[in-house]
């Protein structure tokens, strides 16, 4: 097997750092709830922490940071379909709620 595959050898240090970082981030996102932060701030924080954690796991632990661009794209491009789905379903969910709210006795 050629270098990179047999490899994915990286200094232990970086794993430990990321590991620590993940703990910190998780603690933060937990504290967001603990201190009852509400509204937009809550959401921005939650999402930031979430994406950071996800990013580190994928990039470092799953070695994507060191993979070839070819693989990166294969993994990321398809998610655009999911993105569209999520956005449209959010709109759809609100629309459904709206009609229920307007016409039903709840």
């Amino acid at each position, binding site marked *: *097997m*050629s270098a*990179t*595959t*047999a*490899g*994915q*050898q*990286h200094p*232990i240090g970086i*794993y*430990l750092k*990321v*590991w620590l970082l*993940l*703990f910190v981030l*998780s603690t933060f*996102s*937990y504290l*967001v*709830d*603990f201190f*009852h932060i509400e509204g937009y701030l*809550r959401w921005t924080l*939650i*999402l930031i*922490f*979430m994406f950071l*954690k*996800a990013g580190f*796991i*994928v990039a*470092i*632990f*799953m*070695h994507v940071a060191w*993979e*070839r*661009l*070819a*693989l990166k*794209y*294969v*993994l990321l491009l*398809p*998610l655009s379909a*999911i993105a569209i*789905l*999520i956005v449209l*379903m*959010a709109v*759809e*969910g*609100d629309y*459904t*709620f709206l009609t*229920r*709210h307007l016409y*039903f006795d*709840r």
Partner: protein
Amino acid sequence: MIQTDKSSSYTTPGIPGLVSDWSADRQTFDVPWGKLMMWIFLLSDTFIFSIFLTGYMTVRLSATDPWPNPSEVFALEIAGHHLPLILIAIMTFALITSSGTMAMAVNFAYRGDRRKTAWLMAATALLGASFVGMQAFEWSKLIAEGVRPWGNPMGAAQFGSTFFMITGFHGLHVTAGVIYLSIVARKVARGHYEQKGYAIVEIAGLYWHFVDLVWVFIFAFFYLW
């Protein structure tokens, strides 16, 4: 004109590298078959979980009954202190820890340190098992409080259904991972992969990190929303 075997030349960086990889001879990615297969499988699995969560989002947005507040539902009384989401937090840490040990395992595997690898994988599996255990506790607690897939005393029926479905499906993945890891760990310990090479450990690792990754999103969207 006769394409020479490019497989040794995955060096060009950036977009040109992307092009040369895709136009490479024999194989597109410089990775073992099993690893690529695992990646594609995980991509497919990502779609599964994304769609689970999208479904959850949609029913939650369109539900007219009030949505129970997770931070209260999942709170625990510990030593007289009322701690919201505490168990979930612990589970999260358990899973992250396991991810760390797994990453180490992969690292040592490529360094050819069989004993460390095997032990770290065993630790990972153990942490995974404990996660499942806590999940089971969580479930029984909720069931005791009258939460059912078809309804619950606190509000929208979808709360129970989505909770049991999503955490259940994730739990299955963890359980499968625990079994998978134990098997591989055992084989590693026995030096089963000495000549085959240790890519298998990285592949198992990919799967395990993915399970952790999914939990990150479940944690944010289900428990913190």
